[in-house]
């Protein structure tokens, strides 16, 4: 028998659907599978359900989301590795506050794994972005919604895409002044895609609500604008902004200085791919490829939500519902086809495509990088060093690139800089950048060496019966 199997309790051995991620997609998947009559384990890193969009105040004593019986919710639980086993996959998780000792370990085998790990927002480096006071839009929103914390008194938001608006609103809600929202693109382009626009009617209504709220607070919303530098000694004291041409190069003479004490950046999203990559799921354009039943290229692995494309919480939930039904089917249930959800997915995907087309990232920002602009914050790799290493050593691929430049080797493992490094080296070498190489992280979340060393059998529940023999 396999030694690793000793730890599996009977109910952890191929008897339940496992959903990773408790955002809109993961919650919907768990509900749909439970409704079809199968047992579900829902694993999420957060203390409470909701993910990014429905982030709850972690200080409140209540839980907003109910889950049907048959769903076991494992909160504060991180899946740090995933491996194939005969007939399915084994997820390895640790439960407990991430930075405290005493997390417990567990591994669960499942024939139907739903990945709903979401996405995080992307920063494009500019001089000064390493100063305290510069946040990703998602982090700022998480602090506001999750802990009632405002990242600054007077905050500037910059990036591209409609999701800057709800972040501005969250900041207003915790009493911050929003100095401006700078949109690098030109949302008038939405009009070029009537189909997507129509599909996103509900979404646009929601966004219109945000716009109205910003107007009430007299928050300036400027299109074709960006932040080009942050200034300050110990933290952000001011920023320089500029107007952009359609290719994101600067309009000469349009620079302005603005006093703010925090900046939030969001240039689109990067999906949280490590588990999907570990499972071997095929990718397309940086997102997980799925069929109409949300099945990935790997049997027994489904994906839903922002892993498959960026289209908002409604689309994520609809995909989750479809994935949950598909997962239940793998366990022998026969749920009715989720017709409404399938329709919502089709509509949502059109909106997502329009969104992607309307908010591309243009290469004009490269021109604003200076010799000493930090590219990788963890390893303190500056643009000049990256460029020289790439040119002199002709390094452009995967690990070799990382080892030559050190970019992406630090604590965040390239989550922040990977896409940027791939884009910049692609430009420097003329070879396509390999951003997927940065998503290959067999250890999906940090784990202490001592935790890794522990035998899983240390956590067998008493009376769980004899170990299962699976191989």
């Amino acid at each position, binding site marked *: 028998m*396999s*030694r*690793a199997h000793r730890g599996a309790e009977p109910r952890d051995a191929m008897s339940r659907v496992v959903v990773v991620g408790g955002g809109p997609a993961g919650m919907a998947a768990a509900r749909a599978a439970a409704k079809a009559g199968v047992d579900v384990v829902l694993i999420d890193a957060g203390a409470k359900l909701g993910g990014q969009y429905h982030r709850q105040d972690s200080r409140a004593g209540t839980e907003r989301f109910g889950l049907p019986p048959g769903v076991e919710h494992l909160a504060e639980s991180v899946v740090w*590795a995933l*491996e*194939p086993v005969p007939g399915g996959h*084994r997820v*390895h998780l640790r439960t407990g506050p991430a930075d405290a*000792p005493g997390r417990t370990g567990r*591994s669960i085998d499942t024939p139907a794994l739903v990945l709903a790990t979401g996405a995080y927002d992307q920063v494009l480096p500019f001089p000064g972005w390493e100063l305290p006071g510069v946040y990703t839009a998602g982090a700022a929103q998480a602090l506001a919604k999750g802990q009632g914390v405002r990242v600054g008194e007077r905050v500037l938001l910059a990036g591209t895409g409609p999701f800057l608006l709800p972040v501005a609103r969250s900041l207003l809600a915790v009493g911050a002044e929003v100095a401006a929202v700078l949109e690098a693109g030109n949302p008038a382009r939405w009009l070029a895609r009537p189909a997507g626009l129509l599909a996103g009617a509900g979404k646009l209504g929601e966004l219109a609500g945000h716009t109205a709220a910003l107007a009430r607070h007299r928050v300036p919303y400027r299109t074709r604008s960006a932040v080009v530098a942050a200034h300050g000694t110990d933290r952000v004291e001011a920023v320089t902004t500029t107007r952009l041409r359609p290719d994101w190069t600067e309009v000469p003479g349009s620079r302005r200085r603005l006093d703010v004490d925090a900046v939030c950046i969001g240039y689109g999203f990067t999906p949280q791919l490590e588990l999907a990559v*570990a499972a*071997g799921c095929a990718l397309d354009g940086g997102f997980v490829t799925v069929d109409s039943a949300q099945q990935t290229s790997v049997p027994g692995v489904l994906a839903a939500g922002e892993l498959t494309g960026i289209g908002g919480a409604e689309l994520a939930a609809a995909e989750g519902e479809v994935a949950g039904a598909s997962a239940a089917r793998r366990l022998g249930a026969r749920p009715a086809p989720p017709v409404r959800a399938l329709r919502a997915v089709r509509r949502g995907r059109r909106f997502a495509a329009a969104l992607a087309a309307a908010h591309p990232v243009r290469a004009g920002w490269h021109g604003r990088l200076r010799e000493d602009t930090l590219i990788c914050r963890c*390893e303190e790799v500056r643009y000049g060093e990256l460029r*020289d290493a790439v040119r*002199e*050593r*002709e*390094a*452009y*691929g*995967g*690990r*070799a*690139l990382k*080892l*030559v430049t*050190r970019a992406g*080797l630090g*604590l965040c*493992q390239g989550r922040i800089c990977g896409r940027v490094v791939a884009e910049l080296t692609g430009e420097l070498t003329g*070879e396509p950048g390999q951003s997927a190489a940065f998503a290959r*992280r*067999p*250890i999906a979340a*940090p*784990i*202490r*060496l*001592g935790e*890794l*060393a*522990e*035998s899983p059998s240390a956590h067998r529940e008493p009376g769980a019966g004899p170990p299962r023999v699976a191989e």
Partner: protein
Amino acid sequence: MSPDVVVVGAGIIGAACAEALSAAGLRVTVLERGALASGTTAAGEGNVLVSDKAPGPELDLARASRRRWPRLLAALREELGPRAAETEWDPKGGLVVATTAEAVAPLAEFAAAQRTAGVRADRIDPARARDLEPHLTRQVTAAVHYPEDAQLQPVLAATTLLAAVRARGGEVRAGTTVTGVVRDAGDRVGGVRTDRGSLACGAVVNCCGPWAGSFAAAAGAPVTVLPRRGMILVTAPLPPDTVRRKVYDADYVGAVASGDAELQTSTVVESTRAGTVLIGSSRERVGFDGTVRVEVLRELARKAVALFPVLADVPVMRAYGGFRPYAPDHLPVIGADPRLPGLWHATGHEGAGIGLAAATGRLLADLFTGAAPELDPAPFRPDRPAVMSQAVISPAVISPAVTGPDGETAA
């Protein structure tokens, strides 16, 4: 002008061969299907060890390489300047420890045999071992200090060697897959065929690492080189001096010499210039299967914590791995292929290719130019039975579409 030699593969071995051939005055072109140094060379550690080898031809090659690396790197610093020739070379020394009573005698015997072969292997008592490595476990029962063990960063080393090739007028092309060799009228190598057209040349060196077997088959002269998988753990950066040398448990030696297919791990713990600690490495024969097995990582972690209990609370940031190229008799394959004049092999270095590269490049260049080699090349001959007898010529890869009809002229 067509090159004298095409080196196929830009790993550490291809880079070292190309460097040595260009130093001998030959016109060299290196062709690499991926990015430079992106194969096994980017997937391992940079140990340059004499400590892990028993007396024999591999130890001889290792000692020659250990002597040559610092000289070669010094010369390249002169030639290319300090920045382009930076390789993070660090002659930090190694410490091998036994942690059980049973392991004391074998370690002592092993070290004694190495000493007779000329290796510096100093027996020290456990207390002295803990002076050298203050965080070492108290379970140490015996220890041997190897001051000659060193380390470098493999990708920097390979790209430095390739920079020298370019500086001397050679060419290095990434993103070019060599699909076969073109034979001339005399049934000798007349060129290579690639996915970007053919290239005439006088000779070809097969430095394809774990893929050397497929390339040799495509060239019509198969050799047996197999992949042996290995994984490494990397921790978050630690304070300097947490781990000072390369420290490993004595069962490492057993794992290297063994042919068992099942999992073997032996812990080598070492720090890098960036402050991270590398914990390697496992040995598995699973073909080219890249799936990560948690059990393997667990085993590495368990042994590392046993050696350095202080590491238990340190976060692991990543795991990575690759496929060591090995020949069935666990010796490198270096030299001319008698079946196809103009075809050479330099491969099969298993878990020691980084360390062995400097001497391998030199040996290949000496054999190529007819200079007297520094050491006996016979044990590494490609036509030894272990490498050629089991190699089968698969009809699928030796079809004319791959090797080309005799006498075809290359562009």
